């Protein structure tokens, strides 16, 4: 079997990724040209951290978008003779290389990493946002009102935190359970939370500006209805996304696994910020409780929350693989990074490349998100 040299692998990968480079060039070119008009975004791009962060995030975004053009092989197809081949091996039949080598089932690791971006970039941020909104919606009132409200909400959160979720995972995959309304009911509740949260956010913030309020509420309802239809009922009116019951289980699992932790963080930050002068001032002004929570406390708690969310996107990706242990979520052949890493890490002693490639992909994506978040924070505080 013939192999490309390391140099050739780099060049060939670079060439193969041309749609990504082209798109990146356009984005950065435009943002340099129009940086003065772009405000915060322009400043972020100009800072080294922001540039690096944006580069990494956009790289994976464009890789996901142009995935089908970039892949040399279908991510699921197997070419038996390419089993466990080293990076750069050339398939003698098609003459095309497995740039990052082949995995234990003779699939193209390069193509799978690219295809994985399509799955990860949709599921991980969305599931994290879902968990985040559940945690915020419950954590704010628990910390702000205290007493009874806190007792009840903390009781619920602790119940979930102490619950042997593994038992639920096993149950969710038991034949017969998927057909019952349990997953849909759970998902229905979880997906309703962000809609309500944004509703309350806008109602409390734009009470005096009816047009603005109507506009924002309409948008919330529209997006919310679409998410609800797509994820809970698997009836995307635009036909963009298909959500099987097993994918739905991922969202339930992430919300249950991450929700209580976020709840506690939000609650603690609220307890702390509630004692600040500006909150007391707002209370004296006679602002409504929800206004104070959402417009005074939440913005001041955003630092740790954003950091948490950015890292949690990584954890959610890892969870995609871990859930596979329970047969939950992704099938074993799925090219999402979490499953790829989980499936190939036991074999790292003999073949390192099938695990390393997705691990680096995930690390770079999470790194990009964090650097970008850091840069946005720094630039927004500069004036």
């Amino acid at each position, binding site marked *: 079997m013939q192999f490309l040299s390391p140099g050739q692998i780099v060049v060939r990968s670079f060439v193969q990724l041309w749609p990504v480079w082209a798109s990146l060039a356009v984005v950065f070119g435009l943002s340099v040209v129009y940086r003065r008009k772009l405000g915060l975004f322009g400043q972020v791009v100009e800072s080294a951290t922001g540039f690096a962060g944006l580069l990494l995030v956009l790289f994976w975004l464009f890789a996901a978008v142009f995935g089908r053009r970039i892949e040399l092989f279908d991510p*699921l*197809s197997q070419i*038996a003779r390419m089993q466990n081949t080293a990076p750069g091996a050339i398939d003698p039949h098609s003459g095309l290389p497995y740039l990052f080598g082949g995995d234990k089932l003779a699939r193209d690791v390069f193509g799978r990493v690219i295809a994985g971006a399509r799955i990860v970039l949709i599921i991980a941020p969305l599931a994290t946002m879902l968990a985040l909104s559940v945690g915020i919606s419950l954590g704010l009132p628990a910390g702000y009102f205290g007493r009874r409200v806190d007792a009840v909400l903390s009781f619920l959160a602790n119940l979930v935190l102490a619950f042997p979720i593994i038992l639920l995972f096993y149950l969710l995959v038991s034949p017969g359970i998927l057909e019952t309304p349990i997953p849909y009911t759970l998902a229905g509740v979880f997906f309703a939370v962000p809609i309500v949260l944004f509703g309350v956010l806008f109602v409390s913030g734009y009470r005096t500006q009816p047009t603005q309020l109507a506009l924002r509420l309409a948008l919330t309802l529209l997006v919310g209805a679409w998410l609800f239809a797509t994820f809970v009922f698997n009836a995307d009116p635009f036909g963009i996304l298909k959500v099987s019951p097993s994918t739905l289980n991922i969202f339930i699992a992430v919300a249950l696994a991450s929700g209580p932790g976020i709840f506690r963080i939000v609650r603690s930050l609220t307890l702390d910020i509630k004692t600040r002068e500006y909150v007391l001032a707002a209370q004296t002004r006679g602002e409504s409780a929800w206004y104070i929570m959402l417009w005074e406390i939440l913005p001041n708690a955003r630092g740790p929350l954003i950091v948490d969310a950015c890292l949690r996107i990584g954890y959610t990706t890892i969870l995609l693989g871990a859930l596979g242990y329970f047969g939950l979520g992704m099938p074993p052949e799925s090219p999402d990074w979490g499953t790829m890493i989980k499936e190939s890490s036991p074999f790292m002693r003999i073949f390192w490349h099938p695990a390393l490639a997705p691990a680096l992909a995930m690390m770079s994506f999470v790194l990009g998100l964090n650097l970008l978040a850091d840069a946005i924070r720094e630039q927004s505080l500069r004036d």
Partner: protein
Amino acid sequence: MIKETLKNGFWRKSLGAWAAEAREGSIDRREFLALATIFGASTATAYGMLGLAVPTPAHADETPRKGGVLRVGMFVKDQKDPRSYDWPEMGNVARQFLDSLVTYTREYTFEPALLEKWDVNADATEYVLHVRPGVTWNNGDAFTADDVVFNINRWCDQSVAGNSMAARMAALIDPATKKAREGAITKVDDHTVKLSLKKPDITIIPGMTDYPGLVVHRDFEKDGKDLVKHPIGTGAFELVSFEVGKKAAFKRRTNGKWWGGESHLDGVEFIDYGPDISATVSAFESNELDCTMKTDAGYVAIMDKAGLIRSDVRTSATIVARTNVKQKPYDDQRVRNALQMAVDNATILSLGVDGHGTVAENFHVAPIHPEYAELPKKSRDIAGAKKLMTEAGQIDHEHELITSDEEWYKNTGDAIAAQLREAGFKVKRTVLPGSTFWNDWTKYPYSMTDWNMRPLGVQVLALAYRTGEAWNETAYSNPEFDAKLEKALAMPDPKDRKVIMKDLEQILQDSGIIIQPYWLTLYNHRTAAVMNYGMHPLYETHLERVWLKA
């Protein structure tokens, strides 16, 4: 010698004739050995009839050293009543202090253990078992015909949930009472037991070798069926401690000698290192283990690379992707055949288990089975598969292939799925945790099941593909197949049997109910200090003769 072992004239004559044919080559040598030993010839006798010496294991010339504790990496599963064992690991713990009546060897022959010998009548309906004299239990009791009668009666008790021996002893059972038939098991004298079968069955002796067939003391039921609390056995070792998921420790038998002599090892420990191969490799690196009980196909390369010595054995253990013919669309034979045609078994072998095995041909009788008959080889035909599936009107059907989550199950399933997709079929893969998978294993429309080796081909056919059998997961029912199988179980002349087997295999292959990609080769690994230790085709660990180099 032949005369001595084979009192029955019929078998002496038949075996003599077969031996001649085997020497000429018209019967397979392995076939002869297995059959001769089923009918009571010792391994040495059987080889002798072929004019050969029994093959000696490597290093047999070295004098074994006495002493040392062997540490074996193996899952330590919870113990239960032996007749309901469902994992070889359970049997291997008990096997250190229990014996079976007959054992199956690495050379694919049957050897008497707690039996000294047995005689079979001409139509395989009457078996006379001669109990080995001089065997004692480690509590001092003598092992007698009463123990044998007690155990076989236990095996025949169909009313006990999970008693898998009942299926193997079916020829002794009265379906009305769900117990052994009146007069089926008779004690002739203290060292002789007679079995009278209601119909001919050559699988009785092979059935006794399986791990649920370990022989327990006659007070086992009285003692609360708890082997851990009352580890009374006839074996070479005694149980010292037992902790599920951790460790089972044994020492050389102290009170009363083992009938086979004395073990070389001072003791044995089975240590559970869990499912992560990394833990097992680390254990070898830090000198916490001497050998593994088995090494799964996917991990052989890792263990090889860790510098361990591997032992392998060809088996008829296998995995099948089976359809359930009662569920749509698999009630249509064209759909089933299309699935078969779309898959190249050799590719599945190389991807599913890294080529650690031999290609199988979708009829569940292996070349190493004594009754294997060769059928014309089939090759993959994508175009034909597509055509057939389109004809059946199911080209758009999404097949859901369900497997358990074990590494080689998963990989084999994924490889089959990829092949089916290549043929233009839609496939969805679902993986379930082992414990959940078995909840409904016979009911899935399309799923994969593994089958351990059984010494005879007809054994699995009878368990898995006969009408109405509890383990018939395909729901396949074919009166012609059942009738022919009945004949094969009754053991006609070898030449007729070849014809019947050929028909059976052909019927099964044509029915399309299974894609059976490969026969597994089984492996285990050991360090250089472990001597006389090899992989057994039924995953059994026999450690009485194993020794450790200083």
